[in-house]
């Protein structure tokens, strides 16, 4: 066994004393763990940058955080909170990522980090998703575009420790010194040309019975060959061949298709089933069980579940918003608004204001809330796409009346999230159903359920007042008032989740205020700036939706910025330049103005709009062109909303240090389509206590006939040394730019979003039965 490196190098004595982990920006201590093959580890809380305000909110009660850290320190197994890179005997590296891959590309970027420090090709790094690991506490929450920000250093440290251990072992095998060795492509070569592979060294480099601490130096940016190189997704081949498995694709023995029949009003509850025996006798049906959220059916196929759900005759108790509609909820939100300060309106100081309404929107992904649950008397196993698996495990254990260690929660790659999978509604329901039926279940929410009962981005209003004097903005006040955003997933484990769940919404409000305060800013020199949040009404199923508060806040801001520019008779782009105080923002703004040909001559009814945004340690700017001419808005597409079309988008982002530019570009392209949907087409309609939408032809997310034919994303080279967030960064600036362009093209500033909300563009499907039957005419519609 080679000697471990001397940890008491006098050069580093002081730094070591100051921190057990970070020696300097690139030197860290990790561990080779005890074991039969090489397992290298690092502490997940390692970081060489302060935590991102946007993504790691300050707890409402800091003492709790302190106590939790104490708890962590006192934990019985001091290495339990480590993340590990394992070198396998086939020469590949494996890493279990304690985050959820939902399409944002973190398995790819994580494989790149491991590959970089290990000098191994990306395709020989296997990244899987870790099951719920309660010992990680806050460190298993996927949200706030925080994954890369928080894991960038620790993952590299673990990989670098593995590389160091491999080099130590190779030195002995090859009879050379570590300094004389070169590691490349998973092979270590000595000065005399002899070589040995990582696979051959995996056992020899292992920690054996003891394990040890190892100090490593991470690569400098100049040495990067993988980080920053455009790389295709590691799961693309599986996806395009149909081999990528999502929850409902998993074959868990005995877990038959299961669906739930739900109440005709939102969150209504079942009282009695009138025809249970009749439904139990239907073809394929094995079980019918009343649970807290509805009546569950289990059958040989999902088709037979649909038949059974539709046949159920259930007595329901109305849910908490029975009788309510968009209009009544908006009135309640308006009543909760704080008074805006009285601002002067004199020839010397004038007030420019805006008052905007944002309707409910759905964060439903393609892959509906689904989960497999196998609940036995002595324990339970769950499979689902989960971004907060620890609190899911805790809540499920609570629901089942089991201790937490009896519940295994496996995290499955999911078909999108957009905030939805911060919650675990499907997993909790599947566990309850499996327990009630006494058999394993594969629960899938029908699309209608996912749209109607799933979580929404809350309805809200955003008011802005700015005081202008001559060519200066003296004050800028912004006040967002909305239906409560549910943050009861806390920071991913039950202690903070319980803090968020304190009575009367007090706890959740603390979270909401914290997240609002830590994410929102007005990125201009506008004198005295205030931004406030008021939340009201906790009766809805809400949650974070991609970019949380920012899209609405930024739209309101940027529309008023355009009004301010008009007031000062300035060009919107030049106005944004003049009041800009951030060099990075100036650069992305200038980039889109130039690349997107700001100010070019355009026909009447078409226009450009420009907007900026700053969040996730990055900055972005978007320039769009929109066509609102009748020939475009009058396009006829069956069961669709056409309307104005965004024809061209130029988007620039400085996201700090970029791991995978190709993945970053993809995330921006997706965010652009989200921004367009929020501005023009997609909202939920509440009528008589239930959301009407039950189909993708009811909820009008951007489709091919809405998407811009010309999209250009520019990743601006950054001076920043640390990565920023990518997953949500494309939404806000695009939404705002589309709104500004629409206002300029039509000559009327829109005050409600999406702009088409007042027109119901579909025939609502039935609420009893709660889900539509599948058609039978598919063979007549081949193409």
């Amino acid at each position: 066994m080679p000697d471990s490196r001397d940890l008491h190098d006098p050069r580093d004595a002081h730094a070591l004393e100051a921190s057990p982990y970070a020696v300097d920006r690139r030197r860290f201590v990790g561990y080779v763990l005890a074991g039969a093959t090489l397992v290298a580890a690092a502490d997940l809380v390692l970081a060489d940058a302060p935590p991102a305000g946007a993504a790691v909110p300050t707890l409402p009660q800091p003492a709790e955080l302190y106590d939790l850290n104490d708890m962590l320190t006192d934990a019985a197994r001091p290495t339990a909170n480590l993340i590990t890179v394992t070198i396998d005997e086939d020469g590949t590296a494996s890493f279990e990522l304690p985050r959820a891959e939902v399409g944002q590309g973190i398995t790819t970027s994580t494989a790149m980090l491991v590959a970089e420090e290990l000098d191994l090709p990306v395709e020989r790094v296997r990244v899987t998703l870790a099951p719920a690991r309660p010992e990680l506490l806050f460190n298993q929450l996927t949200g706030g575009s925080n994954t890369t920000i928080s894991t960038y250093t620790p993952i590299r440290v673990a990989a670098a420790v593995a590389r160091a251990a491999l080099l130590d072992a190779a030195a002995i095998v090859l009879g050379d010194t570590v300094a004389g060795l070169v590691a490349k492509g998973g092979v270590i070569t000595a000065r005399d040309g002899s070589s040995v592979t990582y696979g051959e060294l995996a056992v020899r480099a292992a920690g054996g019975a003891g394990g040890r601490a190892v100090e490593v130096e991470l690569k400098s940016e100049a040495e990067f060959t993988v980080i920053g190189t455009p790389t295709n997704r590691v799961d693309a081949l599986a996806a395009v061949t149909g081999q990528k498995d999502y929850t409902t694709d998993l074959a868990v023995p005995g877990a038959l298709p299961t669906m739930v029949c739900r109440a005709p009003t939102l969150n209504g509850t079942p009282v009695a089933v009138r025809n249970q025996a009749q439904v139990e006798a239907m073809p394929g049906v094995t079980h019918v069980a009343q649970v807290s959220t509805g009546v569950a059916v289990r059958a040989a196929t999902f088709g037979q579940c649909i038949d059974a759900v539709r046949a159920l005759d259930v007595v329901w108790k109305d849910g908490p918003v029975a009788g309510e509609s968009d209009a009544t909820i908006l009135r309640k939100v308006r009543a909760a608004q704080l008074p805006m300060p009285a601002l002067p309106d004199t020839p010397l100081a004038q007030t420019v204001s805006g008052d905007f309404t944002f309707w409910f929107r759905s964060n439903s992904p393609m892959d509906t809330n689904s989960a497999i649950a196998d609940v036995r008397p002595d324990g339970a196993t769950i499979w689902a796409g989960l971004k907060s698996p620890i609190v899911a495990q805790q809540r499920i254990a609570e629901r089942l009346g089991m201790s937490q260690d009896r519940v295994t929660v496996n995290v499955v790659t999911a078909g999108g999230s957009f905030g939805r999978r911060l919650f675990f509604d499907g997993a909790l329901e599947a566990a309850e159903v499996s327990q009630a039926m006494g058999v394993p279940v594969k629960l899938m929410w029908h699309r209608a359920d996912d749209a109607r009962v799933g979580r929404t981005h809350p309805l809200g209003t955003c008011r802005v007042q700015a005081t202008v004097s001559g060519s200066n903005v003296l004050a800028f006040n912004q006040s967002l008032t909305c239906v409560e955003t549910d943050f009861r997933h806390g920071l991913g484990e039950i202690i903070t989740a319980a803090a968020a769940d304190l009575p009367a919404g007090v706890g959740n409000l603390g979270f909401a205020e914290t997240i609002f305060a830590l994410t929102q800013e007005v990125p201009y020199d506008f004198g005295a700036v205030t931004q406030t949040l008021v939340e009201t009404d906790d009766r809805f199923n809400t949650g974070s939706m991609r970019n949380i508060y920012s899209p609405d806040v930024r739209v309101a801001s940027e529309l008023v910025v355009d009004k301010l520019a008009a007031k000062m008779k300035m060009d919107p782009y030049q106005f944004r330049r003049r009041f800009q105080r951030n060099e990075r923002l100036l650069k992305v703004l200038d980039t889109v103005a130039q690349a997107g040909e700001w100010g070019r001559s355009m026909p009447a009814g078409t226009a450009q709009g420009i907007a900026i945004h700053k969040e996730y340690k990055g900055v972005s700017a978007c320039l769009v062109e929109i066509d609102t001419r009748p020939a475009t808005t009058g396009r006829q597409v069956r069961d669709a909303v056409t309307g104005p079309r965004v024809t061209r988008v130029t988007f620039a982002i400085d996201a700090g240090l970029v791991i995978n530019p190709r993945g970053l570009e993809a995330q921006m392209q997706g965010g652009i389509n989200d921004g367009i949907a929020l501005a023009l087409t997609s909202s939920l309609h509440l009528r008589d206590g239930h959301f009407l939408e039950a189909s993708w032809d009811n909820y009008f997310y951007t489709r091919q006939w809405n998407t811009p034919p010309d999209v250009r994303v520019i990743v601006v080279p950054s001076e920043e040394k640390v990565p920023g967030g990518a997953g949500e960064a494309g939404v806000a600036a695009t939404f705002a730019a589309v709104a500004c362009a629409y206002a300029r093209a039509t000559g009327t500033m829109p005050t409600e979003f999406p702009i088409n909300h007042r027109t119901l563009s579909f025939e609502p499907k039935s609420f009893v039965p709660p889900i539509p039957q599948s058609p039978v005419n598919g063979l007549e519609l081949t193409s």
Partner: protein
Amino acid sequence: MPEQTFIVNGERVTVDVEDDVRLLWVLRDLLGITGPKYGCGINVCKACTSHINGKAFNPCAVPVGELADDDEVTTIEGLPGEVAEQQRGAHGLHPMQEAWLERDVVQCGYCQPGQIMAAVALVNRVKAEGRQVTGADLDTIRNICRCGTYTRIREAITDGASRM
């Protein structure tokens, strides 16, 4: 229980199931062919798009009893088999799948099997009309992608068409 016989990905299969069960569930729940995804069950989202006798269709809207013994169903798993071996690309896949890989279209990937199957059928149809795929053709695609991968889908279809 009635027996249902048809051909899927080149193999004749017989399944014991009621004839009104939609083909999507026969494929997914009984045959374990999970490439076609569920996204709505009402022929709207198009995530289950597959081919029947070479044309795009949605198995969520077809009772299995309507299939004849010699009807050929192709799912994403069998797509490479729709072209001759020499037409397949570096990964041994259909040219459209290869274009999809090269353009790194996929994000979450859930809708992508359906997107690819729809794209192949669209290109075949346009080629049969003796013309190139246009922006207007791309605008007719109804397959929804909630990740918003439309830009790369459009690029990949144009690229894939040139390889087909």
